[in-house]
């Protein structure tokens, strides 16, 4: 698969939640394509549908209608087992609250994934990419928030995923620490070639992206491509 080729495409993606008697339209006919290696920032207010969009693309939620093609295969037709396999082999996730396993050290948290992935890098390599080699024997309780998030990034990229999805990765962090996390994400994107989608409330982050999507009311209302990307250390908030 050559660089620039579409890796994932959404066509007419719709998601409707039932919330008691009310119906909530989280996504309304979203069309979207991401190319291999692209670094995309997704902006939008709370409830605009961006997390739902990411969750469906990542295979942890199901669309009401529409299709998601990953390397030509429609994952909306996958059963639970196939979706698990899709996440296992192709998708890396990073969440706002890190979701590390507290009983495992940094290295062991990464190894959790490398043990089950088809073509992983070593846990040490993954930790080196996020700059945490020296902290590999530490438990989550011994790491700062930023360090925990970098371990989560190392864990997400260790399987060499085609897709890296990050939901508010800097949401719980201060600016300086957030920059370190963004640097780790940028490095991960560069060194693994994983197409990276980052959800954020923080508009400043769009400057480091190839492309920015803006969600409102379940739709992509704006799409902006950056001619030049800034380095993470050049942005601040």
């Amino acid at each position, binding site marked *: 698969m050559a660089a620039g080729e579409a890796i994932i495409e959404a066509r007419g993606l719709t998601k409707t939640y039932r919330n008691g008697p009310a119906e909530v339209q989280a996504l309304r006919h979203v069309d979207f394509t991401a190319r291999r290696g692209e670094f995309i920032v997704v902006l939008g207010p709370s409830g605009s549908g961006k*997390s739902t969009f990411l*969750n469906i693309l*990542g295979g*942890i*939620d199901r669309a009401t209608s529409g299709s998601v093609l990953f390397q030509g295969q429609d994952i909306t037709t996958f059963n*639970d*087992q196939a979706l*698990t*396999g899709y*996440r*296992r*082999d192709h*998708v890396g*996730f990073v*969440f*706002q*609250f890190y*979701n*590390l*396993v*507290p*009983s*495992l*050290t940094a290295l*062991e*948290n990464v*190894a*959790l*994934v490398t*043990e*089950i*992935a088809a073509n992983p890098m070593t846990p040490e390599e993954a930790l080196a990419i996020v700059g945490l080699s020296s902290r590999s*024997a530490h*438990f*989550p*309780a*011994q790491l700062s928030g930023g360090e925990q998030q970098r371990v989560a990034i190392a*864990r997400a990229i260790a*399987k060499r995923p085609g897709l890296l999805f990050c*939901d508010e990765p800097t949401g719980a962090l201060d600016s300086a620490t957030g920059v370190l996390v963004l640097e780790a994400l940028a490095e991960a994107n560069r060194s693994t070639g994983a197409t990276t989608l980052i959800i954020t409330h923080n508009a400043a982050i769009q400057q480091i992206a190839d492309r920015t999507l803006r969600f409102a009311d379940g739709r992509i209302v704006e799409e902006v491509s950056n001619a030049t990307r800034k380095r993470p250390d050049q942005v601040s908030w």
Partner: protein
Amino acid sequence: MVIPPLRRKALRDLRRLWGQALAIALVLAAGVATLILGDGAHRALSDTRDRYYADYRFADLSSDVVRAPLALVDDIRAIEGVVQAEPRIVKLARPEIEGMTEPASVLLVTVPQAGGLNRLHLREGRLAQSGTADEAVVSQDFATAHGFHQGSRLGVVMNGKRRDLTVTGIALSPEFIYALGPGEMMPDPRRFGVVWMTRPALERAFDLEGAFSNVVLRLAPGVPESRVIAALDRLTARYGGGGATGRSMQTSHAFLDAELRQLGAMVKVLPPIFLLVAAMLVHMTLSRLITLEREQIGLLKALGYRPVQIAQHYLEFVLMIALGGILAGFVAGAWLGAGLAQLYARFFSFPFLVFGADVRVYGLAALVTAVAAMAGALQSLRAVLSLPPALAMAPPAPADFRRGAGGMAGIFPMRQTRRMVLRHLLHWPFRTASSVFGMAMAVAILVASLWSFGSIDHMIRVTFRLAERQDVKMVFAAPEPLRALDNVRHMPGVMAAEPFRAIPAKLTHATRSKRLAIEGRPADARLSRSLSPDLRPMPMPGAGLVASEALAEALALRPGDLVQVEFLEGRRRVVDLPISGISLGYVGLGAAMEIGALGTASGEGPAISGANLLLDAAQEREFFAAAAAAPGTGFLNVTALTVSRFRATLAENITLMVSVYVTLAAIIAFGVVYNFSRIALSEQGRELASLRVLGFTRAEVSGVILLELAVVVLLAQPLGWLIGHGIGRAMVAAFSSDLYRVPFIMGREVYATASLIVIAAAILSAIAIRGRIDRLDLIAVLKTRE
């Protein structure tokens, strides 16, 4: 009525955590139920017995003589402390019942007079009346077994002569609550019954005009029994007195006593186990609930609720669970108690059963249960009290796995999911240990109840296949000369016959003494043998006694010791005999000698009390007929009938008890596993959902919790075996009496069965949890912080 908000919250918590609450309530209920059942049954049995004894004037002492003049009764009444003395005629006889081929016997007893001792409770009809020689009252079980009613006819061979009796009444007697035939191990109402007849009728039948063969006494309260026995024995000695026996040696009373002791042991052992496990479950559940509700506790404190009020709220939650357990336990205990009482009514012949609910027992059960639940809650409540509001409202710091034994888990290479399991178990050692302990108790209860099957088999094998190998033991009505053996040998079907002699004696060693029959057998006896503790036959020594383990224990005898033997028959010689060996034996106290040596030692010379026989099965009927026709025959013990009755009776009782124990153990196992896994799931739900997002399959994720459970369940097995083994040993000690000793046989199959049952309960519980793991909400878990 306005429900205060905190109470409303407690009620909602209860509804939300209903599974865990139910599991705890069930364990508590089991504790309450066993307490009420055990104590209720114990009370029912002992109250019924006491009232029966009092209302029907059960005698305190009884003494058999060969033949004593009625005038002796005045001397007996003159003994200090004797309130009442009644001469009776008590004789064994042989009933002739149409269609019944196997041997049977009846005990003939003088019908008690109005105002007399051992009065009868008439179930039907009336008492036999003087002047009518053929009237008889028959014991109820025997009557039921043969369909006798008032007016039925019953032929009985008395003193060699058949008499046809008319049944005038069906009755129960406090003397025969547990009616055991001579030489039998279990009551068999078909083959043994009691027949009460008037004194003149019995006098004539046994040539005992103006004489008696048994006297029963009632003593004034507080009079030392031993002093009266000594005085009575002095009076009866010259009339062939075999020595008086108090209630403790009376068969029916002694068996009831043994049952009461077993119930007493159950009340002491079972309820504490359940309450301990329940307290532990309360502790686990409440501390998790409080961890989850930290922020709410902080908020409540910030809103101005006093810490005591909040602690009270959680205590209320626990007490609601306890209340559920107590009420369920009341119902189950009363229901099972009524069932057990019915079983008693079948097994023991009572005219009534006092099974009143004792409010105090219910109160006590409720109290200890509530206390156990509160004890379990104590530590968590302290945490509620001490939590500063500001700290409480911040999320708790992530669990720190650096410290403790968990660090070791990093040394060995293993899959990370297994490492998670190991660290999790080691991080909460108290919880892990108490869960292991809880499961172990479930295993222990089973081990301690299942071993009895193997023990009974062993008891039967040793007693009836190795020691007593005769098909029939024929006991003469009175000792016969040696040549009587030839007559027996010539009876149809007899393939081998060995003589035996049994002489009642009182054995004294230092300050202890016991009464029993010393059995004399040929030196190389093959049909009835003493066995050494390693189950090898012991040859009868030329001189000296072989004492059974029970006797040796009771009199503190060791081989080489001299024991004083006072023969209670004939010349009543008193001699010192050496103990030449200790033999194994599970039924009664036993002492054996070489038959010639016994004749010499007792001064009675060569005589035999009966013969042990091997029979040709094809000629059994003919043999029974010939034995019945022979004038010297007292009674016959048929080994096959004894064994089958023994098995059938025990099978019924033990099966019932074992099913109760299995249910109780399953409740514990389910309760512990369910709570343990729910808490593990609550703590690790977030991690498990993360694993699902990372691409772990449902099976792999369930595997994490299930592996944790499996480790707990497996660790519990050897511990449970050990504890069960200990309880079993204690039970053996508690159940052993002069009547019988229970061999402690704990086979591998006992451990295996106990483990299988508990593991099955654990698996069921795990299946219930598996559904919850499968339904983990991946998105909700990841979007929130704990």
